[in-house]
């Protein structure tokens, strides 16, 4: 019985981690900054490729993963500087720009790195409970997801940078007129977002097949999670992921993956219909 219970938790944690890790970066870039980043998946891919590349060079996995996240973050800063900063006032064009970027990046990777990259294998081994064996690494992923959520909350709600960053994203001109270095803040925030995307790729790299288009597997889930989280992404993303993870897990377990997938999307439609402003709208108490 406790084995069943644990496995229930394990499955939930697994889906939850996937949703949070793939959505965290987008929560900032799209949810807060308003950039419809169609290249989100490519930053994830970048994190995965850098991780695998570094591990193949002999760098320990954890170090490689951190370096990969940093690389994705730095590339993000560069992309922000070269491309994205022109689009804060026209988010719908950011869609086109980042989509173009995504095409360029995936295909260039294919041409440069080749179509298939050899995997590096999952660390941490497995453990058994009841009749089931589980991969320990999946719990590591869950831990990382929780840590990422906590980290985001602290950075954006509790630090000086966070307050100014949120102000900038709500009204850049006004923030600037109050002295905020909005250009720098945008670049850093975008970098944090893409860095988190890179982290997602880095964390999943050992468990997945690497191809240049691998980012696509994450994209729908991440957008959906961020959007139903609602306007206040820092409050909304976690409950959104919990909600979707529960639905997905329950349907996957009872009816299989296809119903899990369709059911999750139907749930998204229904949630938005019931709460047209997203989940955070009920969480943010108005007034005191």
């Amino acid at each position: 019985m406790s084995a069943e219970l644990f496995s229930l938790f394990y499955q939930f944690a697994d889906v939850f981690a996937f949703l949070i890790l793939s959505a965290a970066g987008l929560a900032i870039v799209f949810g807060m900054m308003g950039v419809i980043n169609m290249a989100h998946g490519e930053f994830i891919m970048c994190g995965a490729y850098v991780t695998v590349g570094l591990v193949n060079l002999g760098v320990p996995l954890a170090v490689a993963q951190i370096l990969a996240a940093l690389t994705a973050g730095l590339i993000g800063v560069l992309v922000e500087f070269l491309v994205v900063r022109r689009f804060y006032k026209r988010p719908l064009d950011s869609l086109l720009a980042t989509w173009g970027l995504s095409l360029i990046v995936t295909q260039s990777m294919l041409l440069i790195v080749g179509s298939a990259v050899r995997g590096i294998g999952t660390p941490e081994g497995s453990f058994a409970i009841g009749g089931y064996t589980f991969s320990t690494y999946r719990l590591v992923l869950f831990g990382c997801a929780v840590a990422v959520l906590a980290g985001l909350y602290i950075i954006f709600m509790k630090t000086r940078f966070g307050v100014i960053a949120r102000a900038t994203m709500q009204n850049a001109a006004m923030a600037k007129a109050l002295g905020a270095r909005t250009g720098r803040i945008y670049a850093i925030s975008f970098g944090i977002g893409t860095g988190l995307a890179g982290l997602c790729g880095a964390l999943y790299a050992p468990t997945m097949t690497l191809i240049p288009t691998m980012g696509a597997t994450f994209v729908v889930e991440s957008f959906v999670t961020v959007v139903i989280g609602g306007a206040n992404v820092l409050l909304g993303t976690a409950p959104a992921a919990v909600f979707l993870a529960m639905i997905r897990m329950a349907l996957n377990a009872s009816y299989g993956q296809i119903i899990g997938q369709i059911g999750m999307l139907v749930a998204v439609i229904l949630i938005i219909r019931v709460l047209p402003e997203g989940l955070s709208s009920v969480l943010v108490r108005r007034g005191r």
Partner: protein
Amino acid sequence: AEPPLKVGLLEDVSGDLAFMGMPKLHGSQLAIEEINKSGGILGRQIELIHLDPQGDNARYQEFGRRLLNRDKVDVLIGGITSASREALRPIVDRTTTPYFYTNQYEGGVCDASMISMGAVPEQQFSTLIPWMVEKFGKKVYVIAADYNFGQISAEWNRKIMKDLGGEVVGEEFIPLGVSQFAQTIQNIQKAKPDWLLTINVGAAQDSFFEQAAAANLNLPMGSSIKVMLGFEHKRFKPPALNNMHATANWFEEIDTPEATEFKKRWHAKFPDELYINDMGYNAYNALYMYKALVEKAKSIKLDDMRKVIATGDACIDAPEGKVCIDPKSQHTSHRMRLISVGPKHEVKVEKDYGTIQPYWLGEIGCDLTKKNDKDQYTPSHLPKKS
């Protein structure tokens, strides 16, 4: 000199399937180079026109038309997924141009314009499944991609398992693009099968192997597409593919003299090729088969070529051995081998089945020498008895 023969080739070398499409392009290029060097077909050189549909069915349609109607190619080759093949067939059917499909697939297409070069279920499953049952036991769990190929393959498995008195203890269909398998792994453990039939498709779904290994699932696996097609044993870190079994007409690990000679030529031309997969290999054969048909028919007309096929004597000596086109179904006979993958991903040929005919379509009533059905049949969708 006569103008060259135009070969129209549609292979995805961009997009999700690029890693499989690339060897297919290479196989065609190698064959054409060889044939041109040795004098061409009926003395005519071959001109290759390759377009990249990028894995998009609409592009297959556009480019199919372009090759057939504008470039007026003499033969059309290509397509990876069954959907891309189905996108092309209505277009090809309205011309008199032959079309070669060079993949193994779920079988069942009965169409006079199409010649299938790959292996089909009766060649792959009726060898693999009995072997797996005998070796590992009667209980199988199936994970399959949730589309025609996966579903029809699963149907074949059900049919064969029933004949063998085995039991399908679970069947799970996975939507294309899904990459997370924790639940599946647990479902498998719950069902306690003796072995797994893995007909998951695409890079995302391939993540299953790594995740199953990480969870220490440790079950024997069988497949009709792993190793020879997606070369997962080269792409994953051992031992993710340990204990995988597959049957096919081609593995790069086959080391007969003919095969070795062929591999040498290939790698000389494409030194970076990670693996010569069966699709690439079949694509190579397709051109030789085309050459054989044209030369025997002394004509590049489909009708004349089909007359040759009808004689049952449309054969070539391929690296796997001699292969022939079955007159009724226009599918190809193959020398089938069963391999196993070891813990270090070493591949061992477990069994050589000799030549197996693509008999199923003929048995259920497809006879292209008499009637062009233009349909695709499955065990649960059989031709109407007329």
